[in-house]
């Protein structure tokens, strides 16, 4: 579904992605974690080419991103993207946020698009907010609408770039719940997050990055119970102690 082969990327002098090799299979939920500046956001943003790659090959849904002839808009329509800052359109109501792309790109009739949008709103538990403006919603509600917007094009892949990092703690759960429900439907998901509980419960595989390199790639249980790389051990310790102790996610 997603195949990175020898991918490199530089921001000026900074080598943000260093020889990335990664394969995501259909229906897989992959969590990417790592310290700030490790390149995990850049990695996920290359998948729908919000960041172009400089070297190597990246094939997404059988479309080669290094090929100039690839229709990037067509590719993006097949991939939902959820941002840390939600990025809902503030001048449009919730329902119009969701229906814009299906109406303008797929020429879905307005009525049909709205029916589909309502289905999605029911799924994320916000049916009663259809005519609200984003600024009238809480952060957690905004992010759930953003997930519904991402799903409106019936994508094959959903990408989440730190979806809960901008939320108040009491709102994180509702967003993670929606993501977990989505994972159960068999959606292919790549999630950049610091929510290690989510990684343990939902992910099929965890990828640990540091300084632009993938240091570790393992099943959640193996990653949390038996991290191989020194940097990964350090990261887990910092994340989990002193509140829980290093082994808190391993049982």
């Amino acid at each position, binding site marked *: 579904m997603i195949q990175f082969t020898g991918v490199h990327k530089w921001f000026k002098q900074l080598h943000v992605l260093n020889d990335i090799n990664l394969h995501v299979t259909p229906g897989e939920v992959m969590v990417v974690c790592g310290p700030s500046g490790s390149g995990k956001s850049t990695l996920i943003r290359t998948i729908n080419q919000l960041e172009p790659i400089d070297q190597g090959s990246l094939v997404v849904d059988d479309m080669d991103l290094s090929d100039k002839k690839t229709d990037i808009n067509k590719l993006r329509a097949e991939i939902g993207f959820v941002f840390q*800052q939600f*990025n809902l359109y*503030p001048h449009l109501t919730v329902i119009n946020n969701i229906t814009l792309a299906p109406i303008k*790109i797929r020429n879905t009739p307005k009525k049909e698009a709205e029916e589909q949008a309502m289905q999605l709103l029911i799924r994320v538990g916000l049916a009663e907010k259809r005519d609200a403006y984003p600024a009238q919603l809480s952060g957690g509600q905004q992010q759930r609408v953003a997930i519904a917007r991402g799903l*409106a094009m019936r994508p094959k892949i959903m990408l989440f770039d730190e979806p809960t990092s901008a939320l108040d703690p009491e709102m994180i759960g509702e967003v993670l719940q929606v993501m977990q429900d989505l994972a159960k439907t068999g959606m292919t998901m790549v999630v950049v997050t610091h929510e290690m509980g989510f990684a343990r419960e939902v992910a099929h595989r965890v990828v640990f990055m540091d300084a632009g390199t993938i240091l570790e790639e393992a099943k959640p249980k193996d990653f949390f119970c038996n991290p191989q790389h020194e940097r990964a051990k350090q990261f887990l310790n910092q994340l989990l102690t002193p509140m829980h102790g290093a082994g808190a996610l391993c049982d």
Partner: protein
Amino acid sequence: MSILSNFQVIADNFTYFMIGRWPAGPLGGVGLTLYLAVVSCILSFFGGLILGLLSVSRHRWISWPSMLFINTVRGVPLLMVIFWMYFLLPALFGKVPESQTVIMALTLFTSAYMSQIVRAGIEGIGTGQMEAAVSTGLKHWQAMYYIILPQGLRNMIPSFVNQFVSLIKDTSLAFIVGVSELTHVGTQINNRTMAFPTEIFFFIAVVYFILCFAFTSLSRWLEQRLAWRKAI
């Protein structure tokens, strides 16, 4: 004779101040001033929008020439642009009415300034909005049209009105090429009556002030009406 009675000259020529010789002859005075300002404003709104969009283009071969053009126009005094149009347009297209050469000059000049308002308005909308729009599969122009511009234009309204108010005042320069707008009409009456320059030019200043103040107030009203719920 009290100073107030000197203002009789205004009352005597009031219709001429307001509309010139219209409807028997051509429109002049305040009427022509407003005509020049409104027509130039509408044209330079679209001119500024187009130039502004070109100047934020991702393609350098589009953005650089448009920035060069914008900066050239902004670097030249308006009076010079009016002279240029006054002599250039007839040379190119034969006889062109003076008022139209002035409209062209004002449009060209104001478009260059408007384009920078548009540019700032677009750049003021965070990159997140553009990224969100294109990541759903919208083309760049669709994202611009449905997402960026509707938000940007509302933010641009106060600056647009400032520019329009400047435009109203700039129309007074049309008097140099003999277009009978308010300032020109004022000098005519002054030349004819000889005795009341203070009263006449005081009156003209007040009229300009009223026009500009009216539009500034209108803009404040418009802003409030268009304000939508900002992010918390």
